């Protein structure tokens, strides 16, 4: 019995040594738990990195941290590399930086025209950071987004993410998570759309001159088109909606359009988006997108006829698709519609001949869209 016990204890001890990762316990006050990271760059290539971190200072008199109060802090460091900036943060605070809780990565507008893969690869190579983290652009400095003060205490990053999720639900943005960006950047002619977060000071202080909390008009109001890993041009919410429809990325959209001179609000459930690609007689690719779904009329005050609404909705969807195609494929040869992947899968011989200059092939790709909707009146 004693012998078995000794054996058991020995085994446990051996395993305990193996689990040495768990032995590095550190007081939470000695750890800097980062929630969001913002990266700005100046003309000389120096990074200004802002970190939104959890402030674990307990309330006066002790007790647990109150989640409803402002428990986030923002630090700003500088460096020639992101690693240098992070080391600088550790030196500045005397704490060990923990990036395992990062929920958002924000790139400043200074990144426009620069290869963002050099910055983002730093984050996806960090095995602590979850690969589903959203990466976004800021309409100004990334530090403006990281330092934004919202009323709900510690949940600032969660609220920012919630804003992205809401925009995704409306179809006005497409989430760009680290894993998707990493995968996209490995493809020839890598192009992707990233949400742009805006934080503008709103004029609704209601006379509270000394208030620390100032309301910001914060949200995703536009998107950034990344072409060949370089942020190139803004994409409107309608154009983004068109991209989302053309790629079948989402099923439900809210539409507002004019039918018979009346403004109609409807929900579209585009459950079947079938995409085919072929090479036409002139040797250029043609992308055919067949969209089928259901339309639920939500607001039709003057009782416009269903057939007219159906036609107007079809035209609106085709308009969104055309705008998306014109802005991305036609103007910039940006492969946000996954034309390269479709060619590689379905027209492999053609793909092999053009893969070295895929942007040209994408630019030459024409797009046919057919929309078929069944209409349901909201009772």
């Amino acid at each position: 019995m004693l012998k078995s016990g000794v054996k058991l204890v020995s085994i446990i001890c051996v395993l305990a040594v193996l689990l040495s990762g768990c032995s590095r316990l550190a007081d939470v006050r000695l750890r800097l738990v980062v929630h969001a990271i913002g990266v700005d760059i100046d003309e000389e290539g120096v990074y200004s990195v802002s970190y939104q971190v959890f402030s674990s200072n307990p309330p006066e008199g002790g007790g647990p941290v109150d989640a409803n109060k402002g428990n986030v802090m923002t630090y700003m460091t500088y460096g020639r590399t992101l690693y240098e900036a992070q080391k600088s943060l550790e030196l500045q605070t005397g704490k060990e930086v923990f990036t395992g809780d990062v929920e958002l990565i924000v790139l400043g507008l200074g990144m426009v025209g620069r290869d963002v893969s050099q910055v983002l690869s730093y984050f996806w190579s960090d095995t602590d950071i979850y690969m589903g983290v959203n990466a976004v652009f800021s309409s100004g400095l990334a530090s403006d987004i990281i330092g934004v003060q919202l009323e709900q205490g510690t949940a600032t990053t969660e609220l920012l993410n919630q804003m992205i999720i809401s925009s995704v639900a409306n179809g006005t943005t497409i989430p760009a998570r680290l894993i998707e960006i990493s995968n996209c950047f490995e493809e020839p002619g890598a192009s992707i759309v990233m949400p742009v977060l805006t934080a503008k000071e709103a004029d609704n202080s209601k006379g509270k001159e000394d208030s620390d909390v100032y309301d910001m008009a914060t949200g995703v109001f536009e998107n950034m088109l990344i072409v060949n890993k370089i942020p190139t041009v803004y994409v409107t919410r309608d154009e983004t909606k068109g991209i989302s429809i053309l790629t079948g990325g989402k099923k439900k959209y809210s539409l507002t359009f004019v039918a018979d001179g009346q403004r109609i609000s409807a929900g579209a459930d585009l459950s079947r988006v079938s995409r085919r690609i072929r090479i036409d007689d002139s040797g250029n690719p043609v992308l055919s997108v067949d969209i089928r779904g259901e339309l639920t009329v939500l607001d039709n005050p003057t009782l416009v006829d269903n057939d007219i609404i159906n036609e107007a909705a079809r035209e609106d969807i085709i308009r969104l698709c055309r705008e998306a195609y014109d802005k991305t494929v036609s103007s910039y040869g940006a492969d946000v519609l996954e034309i390269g992947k479709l060619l590689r899968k379905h027209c492999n011989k053609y793909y092999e001949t053009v893969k070295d200059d895929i942007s040209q092939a994408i630019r030459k790709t024409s797009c046919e869209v057919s929309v078929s909707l069944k209409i349901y009146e909201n009772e």
Partner: protein
Amino acid sequence: MEEKNIKISSGQMYVLLILARIMHTMIFHAKEFKIGTPVMLALVFTTIIESVMSIPLILLLKDGGCDPVSIIAGNGRLAVFVRFLYSAYFLFISAGTLMYFAQFMKAEFNKTATPMAVIIVLTLAAAYCAYLGIEGTARAGTIVLWAFMVLFVVMAAVSEGEFERLNLLPVTLKDTDKILDYAVRDLSSSWWLPMLASMGAYLKNGVGKTVGGYLISKFLILETLMLLVTLVLWNFVGVLGYPMLALGAYAKTVFIQRFDAINMFVWCLNCVIVNGTYLFISAQSFGEGRRKIGVAASSAVAAIGAVVIFLMSLGLNDGVAFVIKLSGIVLLGVIVPLAAVIVKKKRANQE
């Protein structure tokens, strides 16, 4: 010290074989190697080839355990030499497992103890397994296999990624090189054949179900992993390098996101069990020597041997390692059992 090697069932043998294969998959680094449909097709071919290669073993062990070396050469010099080959081969395999595990730990869990410390502790634990005997190791292996299966299913089930069917590219003639490359790589990791041959003497019953179960399980586990990698993770595997580890890196539950400790725990347990089995094979291949120096001493010698070979093979060329592995599989996993089948049949005919 009394010998603790009790015979094991075909189910327990299956557990040890599949754990060894899983260990190899766990520490397989994709590097520039791209997982996709050509590789999935290659696995179909290698499974067929492995099935054919296993026929001598199935014929030899169909009615229960026997020792192919004894059948061929009794206890003569040839037997000592062949046993030495088995012993050296599995010390080499053990050293390779330790080396790749050390690289894995260094790359992914760099905040843990130094790789050498981890290797020494793992080897000590493995030597203890070898000392306890194959039956105890197989019993512990059953628990580890369950733990692994739960982890694998949980990681796959909670993956946040969406299936991207465009990643399932058609296989063309251009992929022939890739298919051949993977097929040869996969076949060079089929040391389950010499493993089964060397442990034949410890089998209680027939081996047909063990081989069938192993080949089907290996095929399903690897194809599932490759399908998930292709559909969900795609190029991202190149970032982490380890396909099975990458599977957990994109899980939507916080529990699995913080999977490092859980994975490390199961990885380590598996490493101990698998290396314990390799050391056991090496130690028992000492034959008479093992009985003279004792079970504990022979296990310790095997463990030291594995670490020494690990240190010696640090700068070993991949090509040389590949030739050693493949030669061992053919010689010790196919030719020796085949020779034993022929000798056994001749003796039966003479009687």
